[in-house]
């Protein structure tokens, strides 16, 4: 029983990270029906921007100062990644809009490789230790160890999910996004500035990726130029599982993915790597719309 509860907590911890990355994935897909495979790498860039800010300022600070630096690094990383997202959209994706989906997908993979290799040149291929901004703390709840940092990740992903849902459902920009998602040409005819809406979508998605980047950097305290590949792929599966385009679905899919991985790992760890992809195949075969993705109109 103890070990079951502990593994449950472990699963939620892993899942919270997937959920956070999946949110950005799903939003971009919801609006322009494009799988932005560079999303995992924007997340990596976000971690590096936060790393640069944090190493510049952090040195044996108090907990309060650490949290302040953490907040500042998060803001800088979000702004930086939003700009990067806008740049990528403007230079790589917009010129190809209207082409087949395969073209956009291939370009996204190209952007992904570009970001990885650029970062390898700028920061070097070796992993970097991320400064400790939030002190290590493990709460012992009964027999279960809960890492305080992971609770922060979980809380942040919930806040992000709620905020995003609000943005999409209850603001003017959200209304425009839904209009573009529903019918891009009709939206244009109704006077929606489609290019601007799509650019904003990418900026928000990239800022979310930056948040995931800094949180993962803080939790695992190690970043490298290729850190986005595997989590990016798994977050994509999480988004599909939850119903791609659906915001609460991304959250649910992420948490379920984490739990499934840990469940398999606790029986036979050799099989863990296959879990995500078995789930992907199963979802695509039996419920292509994902768990929450059936109501087409809500897709954003």
């Amino acid at each position: 029983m103890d070990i079951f509860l502990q593994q449950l907590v472990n699963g939620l911890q892993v899942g919270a990270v997937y959920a956070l990355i999946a949110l950005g994935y799903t939003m971009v897909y919801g609006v322009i029906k494009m799988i932005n495979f560079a999303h995992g790498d924007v997340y990596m860039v976000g971690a590096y921007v936060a790393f640069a800010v944090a190493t510049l300022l952090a040195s044996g600070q108090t907990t309060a100062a650490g949290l302040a630096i953490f907040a500042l690094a998060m803001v800088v990383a979000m702004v930086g990644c939003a700009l990067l997202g806008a740049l990528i959209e403007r230079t790589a994706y917009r010129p190809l809009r209207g082409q087949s989906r395969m073209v956009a997908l291939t370009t996204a993979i190209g952007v992904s490789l570009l970001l990885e290799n650029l970062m390898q040149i700028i920061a070097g291929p070796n992993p970097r230790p991320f400064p400790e901004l939030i002190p290590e703390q493990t709460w012992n709840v009964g027999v279960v160890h809960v890492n305080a940092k992971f609770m922060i990740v979980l809380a942040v992903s919930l806040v992000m999910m709620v905020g995003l849902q609000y943005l999409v459902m209850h603001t003017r920009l959200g209304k425009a996004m839904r209009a573009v998602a529903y019918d891009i040409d009709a939206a244009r005819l109704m006077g929606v500035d489609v290019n601007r809406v799509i650019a904003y979508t990418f900026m928000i998605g990239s800022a979310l990726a930056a948040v995931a980047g800094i949180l993962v950097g803080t939790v695992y305290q190690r970043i490298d130029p290729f850190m986005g590949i595997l989590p990016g792929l798994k977050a994509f599966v999480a988004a599909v599982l939850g119903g791609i385009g659906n915001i609460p679905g991304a959250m649910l899919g992420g948490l379920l993915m984490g739990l499934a991985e840990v469940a398999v790992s606790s029986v036979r760890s050799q099989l863990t790597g296959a879990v995500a992809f078995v789930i992907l195949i199963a979802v695509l075969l039996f419920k292509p719309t994902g768990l929450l993705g059936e109501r087409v109109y809500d897709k954003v």
Partner: protein
Amino acid sequence: MGIRLARLRAGAVTAALAAVALLLAACGGGGTPAGSGDGGAGGGGGTIKVGLLMPLTGQISQFGKQTSNGAKLAFEQKGNQVGNYKIELVEEDDKNDETEAVQRVQKLITQDQVVAVIGSVSSRISIPISEVLEQSGVVHLTPTSTADDLTPGKKWVFRACFYDSFQGRVMAKFAREHLNAQTAAILYDMTNPYSEGLYKSFEAAFKELGGQVVRVESYQKGDQDFHAQLTKIAQAKPDVLFLPDYYNPVGLIAQQARQVGVQAKLLGADGWDDSQLYELGGEAIIGNYFSNHYSIEQDNPESKAFVEAYRQKYGEDPSALAALGYDAANLLMDAIQRVIDSGGDPTDPEQIRDALERTEGFKGVTGTITFDENHNPVKSAVVLETTKDGHKYVTTVEPE
């Protein structure tokens, strides 16, 4: 260094190489490089060309430079001269890339006509080039590649370091005899043959020595969350936890192990040997043990002289890789010397190969070297402890 290649790829490379080698033989009407002929046999002197193939750029360039520095120091100390023969070093960069490495080796064989190639650092590179050199009849001596299946069954391939199975045994022996461990757990990277090879040899030896392996768990390259596996390991309460991987994942695993309450001593192998281990592992990595080829604290005259000379030339302490590069160069020169002493022709790769095979009790920096039937040196390993001030020498484990 371990290997990280898909075996399939090695197979394909080998097949391609065999084809290229055949073609070359057909075009060149001979194919066997014969050193630079102008000196000829006898005591008249001449030039012997030796290739040095290292990853001087790319991901593991610092390893390549250290190994290369060690080898160059050895040649320099002898004045680039053995007997009446001048040694000419031809250095090439393999960029830690299989294809590039094979091309560089082809160039060394056909254009420079070297008698021997010293290189490369990682087994992933050394295995494909060993196939080319084996085909061409040129001596291959790798300073640092530890993969078990690099040398067996090959006539021309030698190494200056011990191999992975031996390293696994060393740590099992150390755990049983030094730490008095009864139970062990293992967490390894199932996608890396280096890690898997070490795990298997450690497990076998630990059981053979009367210990009990209570848990074996794995992960994949790129994973960063190990809580699930470590929770199971914590439950089993082992005395030691063996982590056969490079410093990068090991640092993370050490931290997470302490978070979920793993109390075991952590054990590792030569992949731990990097100062980044401490940055990535923090407090959690202190007070644990790993096996290595060499320690600068080793107390023998060869080692002391080497450390002194290396510091003077390069302004830093030599790493284990530098020591292995130094030993590899000296092993080769020792073989050449013996060819000359016995009145042979040291520009003939065949004679150097035969002499190298007969190496016995060679006093190197990293131990006393005699080759076994698979051209692996039979020599001791050191065990180091991770402390706040870096690696600390603990003991030397002899091969049985």
